[in-house]
């Protein structure tokens, strides 16, 4: 047999695609033939995505999206649909951290992480779901984190959202399986991105010592798992959380 990973004629929406894991996912889906709408929070970020796509010969464009705003989302989907057609592959990747020990955590730190990482998954997924049920085909992939399963001091807000999206995916998978739509979660471990570059050296070393593969993951190594789930090759996987962490946490 051959592994069918072509995404020709598919339109994919990837939130938070200007850098890190989201950028790698957008580029990988694009390289497999999908038309990709990659979102960024700023116009400059969106232009950077468009330029990157053009350079790599990827169809699609960068667009501005504030995932916490229903208005911004409606605008994006309208323009994306007119230009490229309705997305039937959705990668909920956009996310933020606002770390603090719970006893010191401000409501704003809790609320903004919940809104951006969890409520936005609800918002964007709901807005895209109708077109997927009509198409009788869809792929929804949430980017979670190993922290959602193993926990991490100082990240109670972040971990709550990352565990939350996995539960969301399992429930939605049960709801829309009959429409040919799969819903999965990919949980990266310690990946070499801007988000992990800010960690203090001592913490990086401590983390590294717990990774059997002995290195950080590359964003492309998350993107390849997402691409598998998005393609026909991953068509029978649904409601699942796939951990990609070099063995740092084995569920």
């Amino acid at each position: 047999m051959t592994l069918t990973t072509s995404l020709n004629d598919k339109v994919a929406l990837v939130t938070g695609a200007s850098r890190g894991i989201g950028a790698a996912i957008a580029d990988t889906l694009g390289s497999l033939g999908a038309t990709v709408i990659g979102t960024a929070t700023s116009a400059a970020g969106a232009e950077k995505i468009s330029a990157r796509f053009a350079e790599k010969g990827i169809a699609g464009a960068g667009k501005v999206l504030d995932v916490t705003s229903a208005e911004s989302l409606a605008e994006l989907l309208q323009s994306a649909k007119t230009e490229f057609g309705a997305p039937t592959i959705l990668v909920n990747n956009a996310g933020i951290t606002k770390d603090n020990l719970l006893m010191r955590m401000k409501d704003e730190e809790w609320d903004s992480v919940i809104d951006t990482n969890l409520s936005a998954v609800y918002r964007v997924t709901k807005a895209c779901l109708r077109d997927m049920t009509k198409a009788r085909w869809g792929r929804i992939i949430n980017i979670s984190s190993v922290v959602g399963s193993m926990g991490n001091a100082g990240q109670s807000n972040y971990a709550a959202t990352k565990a939350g999206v996995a539960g969301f995916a399992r429930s939605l998978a049960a709801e829309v399986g009959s429409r040919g739509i799969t819903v999965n979660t990919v949980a990266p471990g310690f990946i070499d991105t801007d988000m992990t570059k800010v960690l203090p050296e001592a913490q990086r070393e401590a983390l590294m010592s717990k990774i059997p593969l002995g290195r950080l993951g590359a964003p492309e190594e998350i993107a390849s798992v997402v691409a598998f789930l998005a393609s026909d090759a991953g068509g029978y996987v649904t409601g699942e959380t796939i951990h990609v962490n070099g063995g740092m946490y084995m569920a």
Partner: protein
Amino acid sequence: MSSIEERVKKIVAEQLGVKEEDVKPEASFVEDLGADSLDTVELVMALEEEFETEIPDEEAEKITTVQLAIDYIKENLG
């Protein structure tokens, strides 16, 4: 332009994957036409699109047969 009855029947047949001749006025979506809960939600959304209207949840719950759907559309678009 086809009548409201015809348009409703066509949508019901398309959404539920049944033959148009089986879509009788008294037919219940769930009991006679085999709709599940997701089908009924999709059906209401399809009606909303076709007739460019919004059907509130509490009204949508009451639309359980083909005739009730036709009646609702007639009353609210008349």
